[in-house]
């Protein structure tokens, strides 16, 4: 099925390409000039101000205590976000269950952990020994298998996992649920007609497609998580902010060390942005034909728009 050949005549008749003078955008140039002015002023004050003490910042930027804090923050973020995603998927699937007890339990969990401040939850877990001095594992009202003092079990790391992980799970479950609902019902119908079971359909058909909706907000959540790990200073967990704090507690260089911490937080969130872009592309498979185009295309349009000023 090839397109019919054009005759000589038709080809000769083809009008010439349009070469129009582009619309000029003087507003863009004015806005750019104003913004550049402000940026320059800000940069000047940041560089020259004595309060920033850049030499101190440079001195501590790669301090081994700070680097250990960075590693701990990365580790915590990965761990707690992982727990959050796992709990979120479980809670979301439970929430959508036809069994009212199961969906009710999920609702209660989400209600509680979304309804109380994260810092309060962390403080609660940190002080859990005051509430339950001993912790037992076993069948309720039946035999117990493990028995221990709360303070030996709930270490700062466990506090972090419980506090950040449980809280994150509640938020993630809403994100996952939105993703699940966004998948066309026909998909479930088709899978059912093939004889697939409910969990199989969830795992093979619905969740992979829901990912497209789930990934972008999960990226945001991970970035939030990375920053929220700093709340664990109250649980004396040795993450980045705690490291910075323990240094300035001794030498009183508060501002420079907070800047050191901020630089590292910014660096880490920037890496997450890039990671998010690639994961989004992976799960966009089968939904768009031109997958690679986006970022380059956007940049090219910007360049063309910017060059629209002086035309010869």
């Amino acid at each position, binding site marked *: 099925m090839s397109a019919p050949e054009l005759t000589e005549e038709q080809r000769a008749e083809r009008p010439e390409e349009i070469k129009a003078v582009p619309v000029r955008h003087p507003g863009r140039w004015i806005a750019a000039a104003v913004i550049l002015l402000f940026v320059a002023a800000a940069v000047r004050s940041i560089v020259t101000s004595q309060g920033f003490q850049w030499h101190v910042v440079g001195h501590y930027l790669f301090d081994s205590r700070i680097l250990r804090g960075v590693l701990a923050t990365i580790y915590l973020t990965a761990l707690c976000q992982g727990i959050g995603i796992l709990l979120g998927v479980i809670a979301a699937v439970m929430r959508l269950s036809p069994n009212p007890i199961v969906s009710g339990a999920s609702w209660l969990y989400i209600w509680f952990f979304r309804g109380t401040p994260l810092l309060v939850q962390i403080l609660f877990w940190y002080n859990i020994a005051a509430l339950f001095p001993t912790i037992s594992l076993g069948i309720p009202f039946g035999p117990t298998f493990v028995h221990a003092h709360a303070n030996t079990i709930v270490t700062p790391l466990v506090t972090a996992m419980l506090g950040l992980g449980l809280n994150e799970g509640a938020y993630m479950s809403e994100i996952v649920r939105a993703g699940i609902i966004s998948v066309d019902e026909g*998909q479930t119908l088709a899978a059912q007609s*093939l004889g697939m079971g409910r969990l199989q359909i969830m795992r093979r058909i619905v969740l992979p497609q829901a990912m497209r909706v789930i990934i972008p907000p999960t990226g945001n959540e991970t970035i939030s998580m990375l920053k929220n790990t700093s709340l664990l200073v109250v649980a004396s967990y040795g993450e980045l902010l705690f490291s910075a704090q323990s240094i300035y507690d001794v030498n009183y260089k508060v501002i420079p060390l907070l800047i050191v911490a901020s630089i590292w937080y910014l660096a880490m969130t920037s890496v997450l942005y890039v990671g998010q872009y690639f994961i989004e592309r992976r799960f966009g498979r*089968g*939904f768009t034909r031109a997958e690679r185009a986006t970022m380059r295309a956007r940049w090219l349009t910007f360049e063309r728009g910017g060059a629209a000023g002086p035309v010869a």
Partner: protein
Amino acid sequence: MTAMVKAEGVHKRFGRLEVLKGITLEVGRGEVMCILGPSGSGKSTFLRCINHLDKINAGRLYVDGELVGYRERGGKLHELPEREVARKRAEVGMVFQHFHLFPHMTALENVTLAPVQVSKVRRDEARKQGTELLARVGLADKLNTYPVALSGGQQQRVAIARALAMRPKLMLFDEPTSALDPELVGEVLEAIRQLARDGMTMIVVTHEMGFAREVADKAVFMDDGIVVEAGRPQDVLGSPKHERTRAFLSKVL
């Protein structure tokens, strides 16, 4: 020999809305039945009931001599557990108006998913079989293409191959060509025609009168939840007895 599908006074309600008001019909083995009728007449609902995607409220519905969705014991109907329902659905293939291909999988992955996951066929075996099926519907060169890059007609043919991969004893088609551009209808009908020649038992809800006349052994005209007229296609479509059938056909043709 028992009929492949047997419906006796099948009723279906959605809330207060009665969609099926006593459907009684029979489809023999190897027969092709075409169901015609205006939209909202309950055709699609009836197909979904046969696959137990919708539960019937009254009457009896049998596929291959077995009750759909229930088991009769001691004069009482027991709901079948989910696993049993799924097992029975696997024996009935279904093709939808809007294809419902899995967009995150290639054509071949669409076709091999259920055999591997449900029937526990070995992966390489399923791939071999899937490749053959896709070749049979004329898509041998599209194995690794995602649905988004296929035309509507190609997508629907993948959907047919996907249903056939479960080796169904009955195929249900719910307006398989209604969402297609006119020039793509033919290729899908040809695939269904081929199945009819191979002796597959089929129920096809369709508005393609020419196709119904040519392929169907039985034609059924439904309206407002009841079977208005049923019989040989040349009778139902050629010389309908009921005013309602005549009125509908005059609009469609």
